C-alpha cells in the first residue's frame, strides 16, 4: 500500500508545485529586469480563472481538438509517476524506464502539434511545424544524455540511476556526467520553450513556437495545456537536478527522509529556476534557423557523454 501512496503523493506534489515554479521564474525575471512583476502564485489564480471560463471552439475543429488537451495532461502526469522526484528507487520503476519517459513526453508533444494543425489556422500549422523540427532533434538527445548515466549505473531505470549515483558520489564529476548535464540542460530549454529557443512571454507571430500551437484554445482546455506545460518544466528541472545531483532524494520510505527530500527538491527547483531566469534576462532569442545548430551542440555533447561513460567504464 505504501508504494502506491508514495507514487500518488509524488504526482500530487508535482501537480501542486508546477504552476508555482512557472510563477516564480516569471516573478524573478521581472525583478531582474527592474519590473515589479506578478506575485509568484499568480499562475494558480490564472488556472482557477481558466477552469471557470466557457470554452470557445472553432467550427472547423474536430474531436481531436477536444481530445488532445486530456492526452497532453495525462502524459505529463504519467511521467511524474516514473521520474524520481522525492524517492528512489521508485515502486513504479518496473512499469517504465527512461525510454517510457522520453516517449510519453513525445506523445504529448505529438498531440499538441496535431491539435495545433486541427483548426486549420496558419499560426497553428506554423507552430506545429516548428515544434516538430525542434522535437525531432531534442528527443533523441534526451535519451542519449540519460543513456550516458545509464551506462554507468547499468540500468535504464531512472530510480536505479539515482540510487547508483547516491552510492558513488564521486561519479558526479565524471566527464560523462558533466557533458550529459550540459546536453540535457540545452534540450530542457528547447523542450520547455524557454529563451533562447522560444520566448514564453510573447505572442509575436515571427518567433513563437509553443504559443502558436495553443492560440485556438480557451477555457478549461487551455488551463489543462498550461498546467501540462508547467508540469513538463518541473519534470525537466527535476530530471536535471535529481539525476545529476541526487543529494536529498530519500532512499528509505520514512516520513522524515521524505520530508527532507521534498524540501531538497524545492530548493533545487528554485536554484535551477533562478539560473534560467538570469539566463533569460541576459540573452536574446536565437534566430529560428540557428536553433538546430544549438541542438546539434547538445546532441554532440550527449554522444560524447555516452562514448566517454562507455569507454572509461
Amino acid at each position, binding site marked *: 500500500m505504501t508504494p502506491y501512496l508514495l507514487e500518488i503523493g509524488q504526482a500530487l506534489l508535482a501537480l501542486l508545485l508546477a504552476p508555482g515554479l512557472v510563477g516564480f521564474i516569471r516573478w524573478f525575471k521581472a525583478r531582474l529586469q527592474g519590473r515589479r512583476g506578478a506575485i509568484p502564485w499568480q499562475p494558480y489564480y490564472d488556472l482557477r480563472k481558466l477552469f471557470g471560463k466557457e470554452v470557445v471552439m472553432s467550427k472547423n475543429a474536430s474531436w481531436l481538438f477536444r481530445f488532445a488537451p486530456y492526452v497532453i495532461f495525462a502524459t505529463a502526469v504519467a511521467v511524474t509517476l516514473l521520474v524520481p522526484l522525492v524517492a528512489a528507487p521508485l515502486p513504479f520503476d518496473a512499469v517504465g524506464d527512461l525510454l517510457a519517459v522520453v516517449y510519453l513526453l513525445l506523445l504529448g508533444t505529438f498531440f499538441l502539434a496535431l491539435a495545433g494543425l486541427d483548426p486549420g489556422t496558419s499560426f497553428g500549422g506554423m507552430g506545429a511545424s516548428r515544434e516538430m523540427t525542434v522535437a525531432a532533434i531534442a528527443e533523441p538527445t534526451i535519451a542519449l544524455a540519460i543513456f550516458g548515466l545509464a551506462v554507468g549505473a547499468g540500468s535504464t531505470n531512472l530510480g536505479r540511476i539515482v540510487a547508483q549515483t547516491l552510492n558513488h558520489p*564521486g561519479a558526479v*564529476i*565524471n*566527464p560523462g556526467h*558533466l*557533458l550529459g548535464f*550540459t546536453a540535457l540542460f540545452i534540450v530542457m530549454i528547447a523542450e520547455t520553450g524557454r529563451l533562447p529557443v522560444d520566448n514564453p512571454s510573447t505572442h509575436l507571430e515571427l518567433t513563437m513556437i509553443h504559443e502558436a500551437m495553443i492560440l485556438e484554445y480557451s477555457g478549461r482546455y487551455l488551463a489543462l495545456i498550461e498546467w501540462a506545460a508547467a508540469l513538463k518544466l518541473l519534470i525537466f528541472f527535476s530530471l536535471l537536478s535529481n539525476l545529476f545531483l541526487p543529494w536529498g532524494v530519500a532512499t528509505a520510505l520514512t516520513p522524515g527522509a521524505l520530508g527532507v527530500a521534498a524540501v531538497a527538491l524545492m530548493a533545487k527547483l528554485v536554484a535551477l529556476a533562478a539560473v534560467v531566469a538570469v539566463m533569460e534576462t541576459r540573452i536574446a532569442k536565437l534566430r529560428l534557423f540557428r536553433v*538546430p*545548430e*544549438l541542438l*546539434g*551542440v547538445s*546532441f*554532440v*555533447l550527449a*554522444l*560524447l557523454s555516452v*562514448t*566517454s561513460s562507455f*569507454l*572509461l567504464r
Partner: protein
Amino acid sequence: MNDHDTLFAQLSTLSASVTLLFGIALLWRRSLGAYIGAFRWQSLVLSAAFALIGYYGHDHELYIVAAVLLALKVLIIPRYLNRLYRRVGGEREAQPYVNIATSLIVAGLLVMLAYAITRPLVMVSKLPTRGGIPLAVGLIFVGLFVIVSRRKALTQIVGFLVLENGIALLAALCTYGIPLIIELGVFLDVLMGFLVMQVIVYHIRDTFESIDVEQLSQLKH
C-alpha cells in the same frame, strides 16, 4: 587505487573534458569575438589543469608553467587577438567551408576517433590521468579541424592556438609535464608564431580589405 588518486583521476578528466567543451563550443559560434572568448576560457581551465597536475604529481615546476600559461594565453594573446579583431572590423565567420551543424557532428566523430586510437594507450597506462588522454587528443583534432574548415585568418589563428592547447594538455596528462626549459621554449614558439601570423593578417587585410583566406587562392584581385 586510493582515494587521493581517485579524486586526482576524476579532477584531471574533468578539466580535460571542460577544455574540450570550450573547443567544441567554439565551433558553434560565428562572431570572431566569441572565438577569442572561448579560447580565453579554455586557456584558463588549461592552466588550472596544469596547477592541479602539479599539486597531485608533486611537481612544483608545473606551477611556473601554469602561471606562464595564464599570463600568455589568458591575458596577452587574447588581448592582441581582440585588438586585431577591432582593427580588421567586425567581420564574422559567416560561411565556413563546412557548415556549423556538420562541423559539430564532425567534431563529435573526431573525438570518438580519438577514443578509438588512444584506447591501447589508455589500457596499458597506469597513470591516474589516463582518462583525459583521449579528450586531449580529441582537442588536437578539433583544433586542426577549425584550421581547415574556417575561412577567416583570425579564426584559423584561434584554431592553431586551440591545437597548441591540446598538445600542452596531452603532454601534461601523459608525462606530468615536460622539463620546464622545453615548456618555456614551446611558449616562446607559440608567441613568436602568433606574432608572425598577426603581421600576416595585417598584410592580408591591407591587400584584400578582408581577412578571408579564400582570396589568397586567386592570382589577381
